[in-house]
Structures are given as C-alpha cells and as structure tokens.
C-alpha cells in the first residue's frame, strides 16, 4: 500500500448522504455496525440542500409576508417589502443548521464520513474519487453497500439548465431577486409550489403544462382547489402545451410551446423554470463493477428488504423508484440498515403519506375511492368541507375538504385525501389510522380537540358512517 492510495474496510458502505443514505448510516451505526458514508456534495442531499427544506422555508416565509398584505378584511393593513436575497440567506442558515446536525448525528452514531464520489470497483470494493486534482484514490472494501444516490431534475430537450434564464428548482430556490415574470414548465408538485411562491412574491407567473390540469396523479376535485387558489393569486395556466423551444428576446426570453394540434404559442418572461420531474442518479456509480444495472426506467429494483439483485447491495430512496419522497427514502434507509444488521425488518408499510405544500396544502395517504374499488374493496366515502370547520374560519380559510375512503364490509379505513391548511400535518393522524388497520369508527369515536382542523378528520369518518354532526349525511 502506497501513500495516497489507502485501503480501508467497512461493514456497510453507504453511497450518498441524502435522507435515504444518512438515515441508513445512522441506524446502522446505532446497531453497532462499522459504517462509512460517502457524499460527493453536501450532507443532507437534495432534500436538505436543494429540495424539501429550502422550498418549505421560502413557502413559509413568503406566506408571512403575503398573508399580512392580504388581510384588510381582518383589519390588518400592511404592505410588506421582501428582500429575496436576505430571505434566501435566512433559508441558507436553516439549511446549514440542519446539515450540520446531520453531520453531528452521523458522528455521534460512529459513522465514518468520507467526502468524494464513490464508484464500485468490484463486488466488494469501491473507489473514492475526489474532484479535480490527483490526490490519489482511496479504496474501500465493504461487506454490504447501500446505494442512495438520489435523483436529479429531468431536462427538457432544448431547455438545458443554465442557471440564468433556464432554471431548475435548485436554482429557483436561490435567486437573489424576484424576477418580474417567469414561465414555469410543468404543473407537478414542485412546479406548483414554486409558482405559488413566486406569484405571491410579486412575479407574474405563467404555467405551461402538457396535461389538462395541475398536479397530475391527484383527483380532479383535489387539484381544482389548488388550481383555483393559484388562479385567484394571478397565476396564468395554459394546459395541453408542451415546451418546445426558447430564445432571448429583449431583456428576457420567449418560450415557445406546442399543443397537440401542432399550434405554437409564445410566452414572454424574464426567466423560465423547468420542473417536469426527476430521474434517478446511477451514472455516478460504475454500477457494472458490482454487477448491477438499472431497469428500463433507470431505477435500481429492490425487494421488500430494500435489497437489489446483488444480495449484499441495497438501494434506497429516489434511486430505488417511486414514490420519490424524502420520508420514503428514510424509511427504506432504516429497513436496509436493520436487514444488514440481521433484524427482521421489512418494507411492509401500509401507508405512505404524501404532502404538497401549495396553498392550500394537500395531504394524501392510502387509496382513493377508485383505487379501493379496483383493489376489490367496497368503498364507502366520507367527506367534510373546510367551510363547516370552525378553526378553518378563524384562519380565514374556506376552501378544501377532508375525504376518507373506507371498506364498507369491514369498516377499515383505506385512504384519505385532504386539501386544507396544514394538510401536511392533518394527514399524520390518518396515516397512523391506515397503518394500524383502524376502522372508520375508531377515528370517528376519538375525541378531537376543539377548535382544530383535525375535527374535520373525525367528522369525515363520521360522515362515512352517516353520523357526522356538522355536515349533512348522505
């Protein structure tokens, strides 16, 4: 062994320190394994640095300003000015605190942290590649590997990200001034969250989307509440439009889109955010060396133990398939670590909740009515409108609802769709209920604090049973 060419050994090599990888590493460390976590960029991955946390920080801060400017009806007169650069600096401070925390927690669990890119060099060997200068390479022998390399934004041909005029979500979360106008390509959850933020900050936002409504994958009446709120804020939607090309025009750009009949439309703006989805990262890994290849969608396939086709290699998080969500990544990371440690863990979660931090928020878990019917259940639906909820009115909110789907035969709660302020938090109770195999009656009979939005959860379940108090029962 020569200097600058070091070989070490580890029980578990974790590649990528996002919420999948760092959680796997911490849990493995807690379980007494010798763990090495390799990250080429920033602890916390996409989620903490460029995704969940930055977006929610800007959404919440923007709402503080926007709500006060829009509350004359409540007797509040304010005309808040926003310094986006300072807001972004504040957001960076939040990110630093959390990523610093991740680093500390890893160390406290005995995880060896290595900076660099890890690529496989053999069945039980990986190389750590450092950027640029030839510092010599480090080789790591591992018993088990956990691949948690995450995902990156999909580029639309002709719309390569340049960080100036064509932005990815990452760049849109770090602007130093609010653009006068912005075209957003894609009305998925990331596009909708950021469109709402920028429109509230005073930017003229135009959203172009290939499909015919916002938030594909969500039910029509769920998407409608969010679209109508965004429209009321001034967001301009154009559906059935595929991004085609763009060019500079004066101070800004012109974005050209095409509809299914080949008609071209043009939208002028200062900047363009492309948010059409994310794709798994597997090209950083030299996967062949360990005997793996991605499936046709680019993901690493895994079983109920988060194990790939190669027995000692696991994959978790965005790289391992849908749903590409931070909490799925973490849940998979925990299971991978526990399986490596010999525990009887499995990915048998019955409920994977999801939230969209639009205005209002969306929270979903489990099955929709259609999905329940398709799965062979006899769905019974209960719904409660937000405008009949006292707490909602005290928040000056009226739009949205809580819907629950149960099985008529057994009474089991199968799923829920919530469109409401704090839907991301309200879904927690429903996720617990689904995960535990609760019946509609269990939730309906649980006392919900007054006055809270959660009362709408209890009432939706009561409504499914024909027993709601504050709404008419069918």
């Amino acid at each position: 062994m020569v200097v600058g060419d070091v070989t070490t050994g580890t029980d578990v090599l974790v590649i990528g320190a996002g919420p999948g990888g760092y959680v796997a590493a911490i849990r493995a460390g807690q379980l007494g394994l010798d763990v090495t976590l390799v990250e080429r960029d920033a602890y916390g991955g996409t989620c903490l640095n460029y995704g969940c946390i930055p977006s929610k920080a800007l959404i919440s801060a923007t709402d503080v300003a926007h709500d006060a400017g829009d509350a004359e009806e409540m007797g509040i007169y304010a005309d808040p000015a926003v310094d986006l650069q300072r807001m972004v600096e504040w957001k960076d401070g939040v990110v630093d605190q959390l990523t610093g925390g991740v680093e500390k927690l890893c160390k406290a669990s005995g995880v060896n942290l290595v900076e660099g890119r890890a690529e496989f060099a053999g069945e039980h060997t990986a190389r750590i590649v450092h950027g640029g200068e030839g510092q010599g390479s480090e080789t790591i022998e591992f018993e088990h590997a956990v691949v948690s390399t995450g995902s990156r934004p999909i580029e639309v041909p002709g719309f390569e990200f340049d960080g100036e005029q064509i932005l990815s979500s990452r760049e849109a979360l770090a602007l130093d001034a609010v653009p006068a106008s912005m075209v957003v390509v894609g009305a998925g959850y990331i596009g909708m969250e950021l469109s709402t933020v920028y429109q509230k900050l005073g930017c003229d936002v135009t959203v172009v989307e290939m499909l015919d409504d916002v938030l594909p994958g969500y039910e029509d009446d769920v998407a409608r509440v969010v679209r109508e709120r965004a429209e009321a804020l001034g967001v301009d939607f154009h559906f059935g439009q595929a991004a085609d090309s763009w060019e500079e025009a004066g101070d800004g750009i012109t974005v050209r889109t095409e509809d299914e009949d080949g008609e071209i439309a043009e939208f002028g703006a200062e900047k363009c955010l492309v948010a059409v989805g994310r794709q798994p990262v597997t090209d950083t890994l030299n996967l062949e060396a360990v005997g793996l290849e991605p499936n046709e969608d680019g993901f690493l396939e895994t079983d109920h133990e988060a194990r790939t086709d190669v027995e000692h290699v696991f994959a978790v998080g965005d790289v391992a398939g849908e749903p590409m969500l931070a909490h799925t990544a973490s849940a998979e990371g925990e299971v991978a670590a526990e399986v490596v440690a010999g525990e009887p863990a499995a990915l048998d979660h019955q409920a994977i909740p999801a939230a969209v931090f639009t205005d209002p928020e969306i929270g979903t878990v489990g099955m929709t009515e259609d999905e329940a019917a398709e799965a062979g259940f006899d769905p019974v639906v209960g719904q409660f409108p937000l405008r009949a909820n006292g707490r909602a009115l005290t928040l000056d909110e009226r739009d949205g609802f809580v819907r629950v789907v149960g099985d008529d035969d057994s009474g089991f709660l199968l799923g829920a769709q919530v469109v409401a302020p704090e839907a991301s938090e309200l879904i927690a109770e429903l996720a617990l209920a689904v995960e535990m195999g609760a019946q509609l009656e269990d939730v309906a009979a649980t006392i919900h604090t007054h006055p809270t939005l959660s009362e709408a959860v209890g009432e939706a379940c009561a409504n499914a049973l024909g027993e709601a108090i504050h709404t008419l029962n069918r």
Partner: protein
Amino acid sequence: SASGDGQGGRVFAAPSARRLARELGVNIAAVDGSGPGGRVTESDVRAAAESDDASDDGTD
C-alpha cells in the same frame, strides 16, 4: 376477512403485530384476524406461530 393478498396488498394489523409476525416467521397475510373487522392481533400472530399453517419457517 378483508385481510390477505389480493386487495391492494393490504394487511390489516398494527406495525407491532407485523413485526412480531416477522420475528416468529409467520406470513401475516395468511392469518385470520380475530380483531374488529378481521384485524390481525398479536395474539392471532402467536396462535398462528404455534400452529403450522401460516408459518413459513422463518424463511421470508
């Protein structure tokens, strides 16, 4: 009972009962639940582990 395979893979049992099933090598999807609506309880899992039917010999 609504538990078992075929209905979207749903299993109606608390996480604690499912963990116990894994520990005891019981295929919980094959256990008849005695709880409300057919929910599988920890004692159902233990009973299944004693009888052979639902046991998959721990080779999950």
